[in-house]
């Protein structure tokens, strides 16, 4: 915890809540809303304002992949921390618990800055730090899987934050309860078995089946003959 965590974060959080309260209060006065309706407005305003704040944070101080130690790079670590704090506090149920209906998940992660391909992207799992994650078309991510673009570890006896882009190429298939770490690239039409653990910076080539903990190559998928 640095001084920033104890000053800037609470101020931002209070601003979000205060403005949401102001919106709900003024709308209640304008349209003569009932108490319950005003509560709903307040809740919706908190969600929307949090999304806007996150967008502002991301455009002012974009989160870039890299290896940061908390002692020597306090600012990038703090920005990540603030971003995560807002996601995990105000959007907790959507961000950490995935309580977004299936059909809206792609939209939700897009709002948080993930790059999504056209068409159907079926996400049954969680994306942590969506702004560092890119998913192309026709990808399926199984239920209970976690794609985490951050990792907090100890490197050379120092607390370190590792941020890395995750790229899931077109047509890849990720099973259920899979954990994918930062910097992983999953090639086109590759498949990851259920309950696999894909370690840091793994490059999974196209048309291969990987599985296990840590994930290893199991099979090769024969490519379809080009028409």
């Amino acid at each position, binding site marked *: 915890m640095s001084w920033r965590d104890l000053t800037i974060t609470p101020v931002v959080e209070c601003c979000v809540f205060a403005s949401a309260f102001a919106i709900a209060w003024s709308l209640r006065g304008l349209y003569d*809303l*009932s108490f*319950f*309706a005003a509560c709903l407005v307040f809740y919706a305003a908190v969600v929307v304002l949090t999304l806007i704040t996150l967008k502002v944070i991301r455009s002012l101080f974009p989160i870039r992949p890299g290896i940061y130690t908390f002692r020597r790079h306090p600012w990038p670590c703090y920005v990540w921390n603030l971003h995560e704090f807002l996601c995990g506090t105000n959007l907790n149920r959507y961000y950490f*618990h*995935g*309580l*977004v*209906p*299936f*059909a809206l998940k792609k939209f939700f992660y897009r709002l948080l800055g993930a790059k999504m391909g056209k*068409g*159907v992207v079926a996400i*049954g799992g969680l994306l942590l730090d969506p702004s560092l994650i890119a998913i192309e*078309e*026709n990808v*399926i991510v*199984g*239920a*209970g899987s976690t794609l985490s673009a951050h990792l907090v570890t100890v490197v050379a006896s120092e607390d370190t934050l590792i941020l890395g882009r995750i790229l899931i190429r077109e*047509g890849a*298939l990720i*099973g*259920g*309860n899979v954990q994918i770490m930062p910097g992983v690239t999953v090639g086109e*039409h590759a*498949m990851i078995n*259920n*309950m696999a653990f894909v370690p840091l910076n793994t490059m999974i080539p196209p048309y291969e*089946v990987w599985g*296990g*903990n840590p994930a290893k190559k199991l099979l090769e*998928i*024969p*490519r*379809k003959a080009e028409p």
Partner: protein
Amino acid sequence: MEKSKTRKRFLEWGDLVLPWIVEIILLAASFQLAAASGLGFFASFLIFCTSLGVLTLVALKIIRMVAPLKSGVFSISEKSRMFSVWNLYSFVLGTNLSLFYMNNLLPMILRKLFYQLLGARLGKGVLGIAGTIFDPSLVTLEEDVFIGYEANLSPHLIAVVASKKVLILGRIEIKKGVMIGGRTLILPGVTIGENSMVNALSLVPMNTHIPANEIWGGNPAKKIASLTSKESQDQPSA
């Protein structure tokens, strides 16, 4: 290099549009019910949520009666009727009952009832279900079964077989007195015999048959130990 313009779609148009039509009908019907009640805002909001849940359960029951899910391997890229049915079924279930189905937000005592409403065959008496059951109509649990926290029973699996994406459906049967540890994943076609146990954090691969009175665990699950059955314990050992 120019990419081919006729790109193969992951879902056919029918599979994309039909779930949304059903979804809009359900939402509109429950909105009508809420509006017709003529109560205050809070009460009609509750009526909207309740009727959406009930109507979804009814719609799912109708889908199950018209086109029940059956075990088998179905191609996704080539048109397969069973995939369309499964897609529609899971979309409606995962969207309208997302909180209860995907995220398991039901109190323990109501879970048995919920899964029974979704077509699971459950034994009499108390069933401890702390995990998630996907596609409950393909799951059979007998009496005295315990399912640990966050364990997933998944009778569906999307995989690549012979370079094609396929949907695999297989009935999961769990016999009397089985215990399944936390965060275990059970894949389609698995049968677990009476009084067996599966350790926590294990992966039971497809079509595994676990005999009665054994302990299995690991990723992939393997036999770890045998349990002595109660009958043999009762007999005095010579």
